[in-house]
């Protein structure tokens, strides 16, 4: 299996495409791409069609992470490259990309996209080792359900929701055939070697719990019987005092998301996070993921330092979970855009930690929602999460 990451920081889209394609040393079987929305997705799609292979791309907040394998020099690491291609060549594996406009029926659209990907892989009856998805933000839970309808609930789904640079809805997705803002895209992987998966938050439970007493889809209307924003403000020592009448709280809540307990092995727990992004006009909190009414939520705490170290640890966990005896060949990562924005300039340090910890090509996307698979084998949508999938040689 050959995996290679190539990246370009050229602003000119055409030149950036030429730059990355020139750097490729083999004809890929599949390309996963990430890009900054300062590039036009349609133009990228047009230029990269020359690769003549399945492509699945999504926009990534302020660019994408690219770590190239060491050659003779130090690894070339770009924490926020304008365009990154992750190329794979695996003669004994099978791969396919499918897509479908989300429309009004995201679950059905997800089924359609996955069917297309399976058809393209040539193994449409079979259970893939992995689904890697690039989604539009907003209906991820429904989309995951659609995937499960097609291949069952146990096939691991990892990926992220496309992001723009300022949460203004400029995110984009494209593939070998088309480009859009609301495209559900999924790649099926039947690799010839094993995989190591890790999905984790970088947060600690604070010990404070609240009950979601009134919920409407992704809006928390009440917590513990009072307006959700007010209760959250109390719990966090007035962190959103100025926004209680409404407004964006994305950056103010990044270190205090809600967590839902997911039972893990041997009595341990994992937490699926939900990130409040705004206070609604009626004092509710809107989230980037769904919670159930009546569900108990844990207030989580995090730190910048923890988030900086986080990427490397998730990556190392995934490597450790490769099948016994297999060496890593490359990795795909998802790093929550909210976390990335929170650590600010330290994103460089985060990338350097990862690059220093292993010598494999890695691409990472900064996303507005993360899909991943916990130890219980169930794939979920969460926020402020980090995931890694490592491919064995």
């Amino acid at each position, binding site marked *: 299996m050959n995996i290679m990451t190539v990246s370009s920081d050229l602003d000119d889209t055409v030149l950036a495409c030429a730059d990355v394609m020139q750097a490729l040393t083999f004809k890929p079987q599949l390309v996963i791409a990430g890009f900054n929305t300062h590039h036009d997705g349609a133009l990228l799609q047009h230029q990269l069609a020359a690769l003549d292979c399945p492509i699945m791309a999504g926009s990534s907040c302020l660019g994408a992470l690219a770590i190239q394998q060491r050659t003779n020099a130090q690894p070339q690491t770009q924490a926020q490259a304008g365009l990154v291609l992750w190329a794979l060549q695996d003669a004994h594996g099978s791969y396919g990309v499918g897509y479908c406009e989300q429309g009004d029926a995201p679950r059905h659209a997800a089924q359609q996209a996955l069917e297309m990907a399976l058809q393209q892989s040539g193994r*449409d*009856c*079979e*259970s*893939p*080792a992995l689904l890697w998805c690039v989604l539009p933000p907003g209906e991820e839970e429904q989309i995951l359900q659609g995937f*499960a309808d*097609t*291949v*069952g*609930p*146990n*096939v691991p789904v990892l990926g992220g929701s496309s992001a723009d640079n300022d949460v203004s809805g400029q995110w984009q997705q494209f593939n070998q055939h088309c480009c859009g803002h609301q495209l559900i895209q999924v790649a099926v992987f*039947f690799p010839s070697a*094993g995989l190591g998966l890790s999905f*984790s938050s*970088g*947060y*600690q439970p604070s010990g404070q719990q609240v009950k979601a007493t009134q919920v409407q889809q992704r809006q928390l209307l009440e917590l513990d019987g009072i307006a959700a924003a007010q209760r959250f403000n109390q719990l966090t020592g007035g962190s959103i005092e100025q926004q209680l009448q409404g407004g964006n709280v994305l950056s103010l809540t990044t270190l205090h998301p809600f967590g839902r307990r997911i039972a*893990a*092995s*041997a009595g*341990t727990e*994992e937490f699926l996070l939900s990130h409040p992004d705004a206070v609604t006009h009626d004092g509710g909190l809107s989230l980037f993921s769904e919670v159930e009414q009546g569900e108990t939520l844990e207030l989580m*705490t995090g*730190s910048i*330092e*923890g988030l900086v*170290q986080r990427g490397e*640890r998730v990556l190392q*966990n995934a490597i*450790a*979970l490769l*099948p*016994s005896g297999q060496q890593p060949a490359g990795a795909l990562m998802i790093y929550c855009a909210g976390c990335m924005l929170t650590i600010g300039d330290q994103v460089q340090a985060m990338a350097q930690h990862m690059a220093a910890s292993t010598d494999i090509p890695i691409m990472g996307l900064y996303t507005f929602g993360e899909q991943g698979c916990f*130890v219980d084998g169930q794939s979920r949508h969460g926020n402020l999460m980090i995931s890694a999938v490592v491919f064995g040689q």
Partner: protein
Amino acid sequence: MTQTQEELREALQLQNRLRQQAEAGRREAELMLKAMQAILEAADSAQLYEQIFALFSSLLDYQHALILEKQADNSLRCVAATDNAWLDQRWPLDQILQRALEGEPVAVVNARRQPAWQQAIGDETGALLYGPFSSQDREALLVFIHPQPGFYLQDHVQILRRYTRLTRQARLSFEAKLQALQSDELQRAKERAEQSLLHAEKMVSLGTLAAGVAHEINNPVGFISSNMQYIQEFSELSEDITQQLLLLLPPLMKGSDANATAASRLFEQLQQEEYLERCQELADVAKECSDGLNRIKDIINGLRTFARQDDSVSEPIDIHQCVQTTLRMVNNELKYHCTVNVQLQPTGQVLGSSGQLNQVLTNLLVNAGHAIEQQGTVTVASGRKQWPQGWFAYVSVADTGKGIASDDLKRIFDPFFTTKEEGKGTGLGLAICHSIIEKMGGWIEVDSQVGEGTRFTLWLPESAPPV
């Protein structure tokens, strides 16, 4: 502090996952070994399938498990299943089944997605898992069925892949070992054939020589024997007459006439010459000569038998019957100083002369008895074995006697070679045995340890393979 707690929690989770992986690996390895044992030890296919189904039930969940065998018309037929309702159902061979048959396990999300299953789908048919199955001479598949679509994952495929790899390696090793053994057997058979050829050439020369010598000696031995009979009879007559003379002469010696004088002279001469004693001695000498001539006749008869092996009879022989007959014949030779163990296992019929086989067995049993100087055991065993050239029956005669020195072992089938005291054996018995067995298409093996005993094993080709 918070960071440390988080790290600890995560490290614990990772360790748990790694421990789970390791435990799953250990469980899987144990089951793989058991599966290997099942493959190698199963008495028949039915037992093998049952054991494999049972073993996999502790490795992965399934509602039903099947074995499908490829048929001449390219379909797959269910030959074993955890539920007999599946037996004899057929599936058309498609790409997925073909891939699995070729050695690549496959997890199918839902049987409804695979056209080959359209005729076989039941309420409990959801996810499918296929793996190639090591079958002796047919392409076969192991199939697991789970009611929940999407239940089987690539993890399950990996388990079957490891199982396939392991069993295939084991089978290859087993077959390589078998091949090596067969090569050894072939090499031994070749050496035996070469030795046999050399021996046969020697025997042909000796046979021709023996036949000529036997013929040439037989005539003079005949008239010498006849003359010796005459001499013996005449010496006995002379002795008789002399005794009468010695009784008759003394009364005639009384007087002075010429007759009395002649009688006295004859009496003295008879006494001086010890005529009576010499007549008696002549009778004894003649008897000894007759005994010697009888031995020469035995040798000539042996040589004739040896030279006459081409006159073979080819009739089906029941080896056990031959053994029983021979044991009755030699019972008197053995019963006073030997315990005879008979361990007869089934054999097929062989072709040849039962009289000649009896002769061989008699020779071996008598030799075994002679090898035991005081008390010992003679064991007669039989059985069958498949050699590269086909099925052979064997009869072995083993004694706990004095054994044969290794130098002598090389020569025991040579004519006139004997380790018995002079005059007690012709040295032709084993040569004749060897010749008879070779004519029947078999061979004789000898294992001997000085002081421990000797085993002769006759290998004879069976006239038909076992049913």
